[in-house]
């Protein structure tokens, strides 16, 4: 009898513990409860429950701790300070799979907040335990371990190197080949986080043969998996030409262009990022992508998307056009310039506008044909406005000015240059006048048009220091016209109107008659 009563006490205690831990775990899912729980001192209560004899209580306590640590970094620091991590790491090696999942969850929740916390996790020797968990049969355990490793490796290069040194990469590549989609996703995301820091780490990832598997998985229909896979491939290929060539040799093009029409936005963004990282290295790689029709696909993508996700597409077009004149012409022929002009107008963010201005500069700087294509899309006034706008950021102004200069130095399309005469500041005006002085001596129709549209008048009104380049250009322009027309416009007087419109008309008729 008394034995039963004694045992009953223990049973009650166990029930109470179970209920407590389950309720805390449930409450921890809602953010508004977490502060209350923290003030109630839940950490110190949960810690001994981790060492409980009943496995269910241990697992639920670990789960509750993980959810709490997930919420914000103070709690994660409290977890670290309470010396819970070594216990978790020890039991990660020993216990059953539910506990392993919960322990890996806690480690991930602690490591995700900052590099110091991740370093603390690494210092407890968590890496070896996690790598051992990667060899487990249960896919849930593998997923949790890979996720924790990914969050650790995310912060900086040393942590990623520590993860690699513990031998995780071959196991991650094996995880990628698992049939469960969740494991594949997480493994791909971890490989991406490892490879993004430095070329050596990316080379380590490539040496284990990851590229072939990642390339196979690009054909998988699952959207989140594709996000991670493309992100991983992009991070690998961004570091050097050899890595980019290896990624290309896996024959992912033109199949990945189909993913540019995926309904998921981030899949499209990551594909475009991958293409940008590949094209930025050499002209041959850009040529390959252009020949596969990639440029058209990216331009359509720019048309369909809005906001920040357009940035990689714009940068890709800029890189392609920067390599050579052929490729820039390919971009122009694929109707890239109107689309980029739309982007320039629509996007409110400064950094996207800066990228678009840079891309225009790269397209238009090669030959007069290219500059004409850029100018004909009515882009130059917009660039000028961006340069002159006081609210644009420094970066945007610098890029707009550079683009404007490089396009103007090759532009011979006069109808587009005329509006710039009126608004441009002197450093831009110099280039505009220079172009006029190059074209006008040879083209009579242009000369006529220049006079009738009032350009000559404007030119006369410009104040230039004698002996400067601007004055030389103005002289060159003036030399194209007979004396009387030039003298018709009084120099440097902006206020006085010209002497009567009749006289002006007669001069024009005479000039048109002789021209």
């Amino acid at each position: 009898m008394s034995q039963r009563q004694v045992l009953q006490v223990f049973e009650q205690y166990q029930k109470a513990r179970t209920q407590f831990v389950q309720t805390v775990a449930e409450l921890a899912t809602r953010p508004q409860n977490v502060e209350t729980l923290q003030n109630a001192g839940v950490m110190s209560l949960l810690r001994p429950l981790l060492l409980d004899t009943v496995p269910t209580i241990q697992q639920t306590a670990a789960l509750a701790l993980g959810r709490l640590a997930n919420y914000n970094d103070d709690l994660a620091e409290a977890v670290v300070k309470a010396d819970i991590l070594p216990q978790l790491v020890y039991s990660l090696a020993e216990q059953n799979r539910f506990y392993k999942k919960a322990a890996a969850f806690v480690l991930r929740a602690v490591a995700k907040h900052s590099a110091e916390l991740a370093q603390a996790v690494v210092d407890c020797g968590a890496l070896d335990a996690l790598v051992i968990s990667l060899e487990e049969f249960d896919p849930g355990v593998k997923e949790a371990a890979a996720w924790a490793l990914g969050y650790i490796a995310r912060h900086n290069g040393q942590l990623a190197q520590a993860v690699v040194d513990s031998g995780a990469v071959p196991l991650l590549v094996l995880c990628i080949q698992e049939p469960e989609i969740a494991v594949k996703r997480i493994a791909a995301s971890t490989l991406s986080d490892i490879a993004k820091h430095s070329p050596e780490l990316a080379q380590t990832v490539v040496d284990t043969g990851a590229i072939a598997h990642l390339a196979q998985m690009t054909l998988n229909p699952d959207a989140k998996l594709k996000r991670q896979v493309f992100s991983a491939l992009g991070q690998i290929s961004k570091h050097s030409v050899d890595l980019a060539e290896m990624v290309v040799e896996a024959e992912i093009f033109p199949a990945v262009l189909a993913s540019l029409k995926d309904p998921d936005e981030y899949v499209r963004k990551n594909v475009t990022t991958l293409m940008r990282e590949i094209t930025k290295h050499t002209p041959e790689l850009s040529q390959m992508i252009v020949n596969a029709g990639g440029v058209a696909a990216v331009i359509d993508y720019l048309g369909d998307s809005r906001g920040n996700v357009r940035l990689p597409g714009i940068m890709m077009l800029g890189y392609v056009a920067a390599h050579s004149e052929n490729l820039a012409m390919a971009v122009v022929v694929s109707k890239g310039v109107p689309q980029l002009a739309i982007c320039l107008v629509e996007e409110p963010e400064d950094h996207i506008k800066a990228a678009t201005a840079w891309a225009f500069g790269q397209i238009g700087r090669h030959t007069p044909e290219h500059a004409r294509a850029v100018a004909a899309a009515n882009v130059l006034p917009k660039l000028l406005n961006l340069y002159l706008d006081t609210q644009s950021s420094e970066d945007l102004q610098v890029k707009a000015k550079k683009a404007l200069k490089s396009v103007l130095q090759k532009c011979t399309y006069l109808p587009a240059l005329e509006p710039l005469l009126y608004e441009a500041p002197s450093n831009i005006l110099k280039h505009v006048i220079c172009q006029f002085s190059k074209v006008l001596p040879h083209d009579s129709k242009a000369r006529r048009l220049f006079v009738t549209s009032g350009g000559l008048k404007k030119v006369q009104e410009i104040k230039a220091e004698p002996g400067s380049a601007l004055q030389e250009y103005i002289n060159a322009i003036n030399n194209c016209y007979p004396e009387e027309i030039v003298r018709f416009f009084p120099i440097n007087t902006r206020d006085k109107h010209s002497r009567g419109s009749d006289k002006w008309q007669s001069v024009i008729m005479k000039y048109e008659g002789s021209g």
Partner: protein
Amino acid sequence: SMARLVRLTPQADRVKEAYFTRNRIAEENRQRENSAAVRIQSWIRGCRARAYLSHIHRKATIIQKTWRGFKAREHFRQRVKAAYFLMKMNFYNKMAVKIQQRWRGYYVRKYVHNYYARKRYLEALTQKNEQMRRELEELAEHQRQERQRVAMEREEQEKYVRAQRLHFLLSTKQCPGVFNSPFRPEPDEMELRLRRVKPVRTMSAPKESWPVNPQPSSYLHDKERLPPIHKTPQGPFRPAVEVQQQRYRPLEPSLRVATSITALEEAREELRRQEWRTRLIDHPFLPFSKTPDKKYEPLLHAASPYQQTEYGTKHFREEDRSQLEKKKPFRRVFTTCHVFDKFGRLYSSAGKSV
């Protein structure tokens, strides 16, 4: 002669006189005549010398003239040759310039900047872009339709399930159901569904389909639901699963039946193939250095004072040939005995201990 002497002797004085006169006259005129003679002689000599000189001059002129003509013609021939050579070289140069012009034009137009190739490339690129855009559009459309179709099917399935669960809301003749209001011109879609649906056999809606398995459906279909034979249970029966498994137990052939008849040959073939594949070196453990050939030291207890015994090297058993001749040779291969084939696999629990 005497006559001559007679004639000449009176003239001897005259001759003397004449001789002196002559000498005197000669003496007087000697200077003049001498100088005259000298003059005449010198003139003659001069003339002769002049004639000789002019002769020589003429001859020298002829020689020089001939020589100069010869040299000049030679020189002229040289100049003609040189001019001819220059003319040819100029011609060749001009032609070479023409060839080089053509070649450079061709080369630049073909290899450095091929306008038509570039034009063709840009046109082909445009077409490829068009094709890519079309294909991507089609793909997007296809995927959208796929997704729509899947969504519709799911919706259809959900509605079917809902109708199954609400099958009791079907309207009767007496009482129109919720979805068949008499004020509506025609019954609601749900009402039509309710009319068509078949009610679910169990109380709750089917949650998941059975997992796919390769065995025929009858195997699992009656796994848990054998039809009851008596109302009251008769005794502790085996669970239905076990009985079903026993009823449909697959063939478990013995090892002998399961091995193919040519297993030995196949194994030999496999071994040969493996040897062929893997064995690269025939003598893998050759020593690196030449050890001096050590003399073989035989075993002590196999050596006799006179010679090596045969036992231990040539045969390893004591053989009594006389006894052995009566017996049959030793059998190495037997037929299989099926003692333990069925152990643990019979339906009854005979022979199994706890």
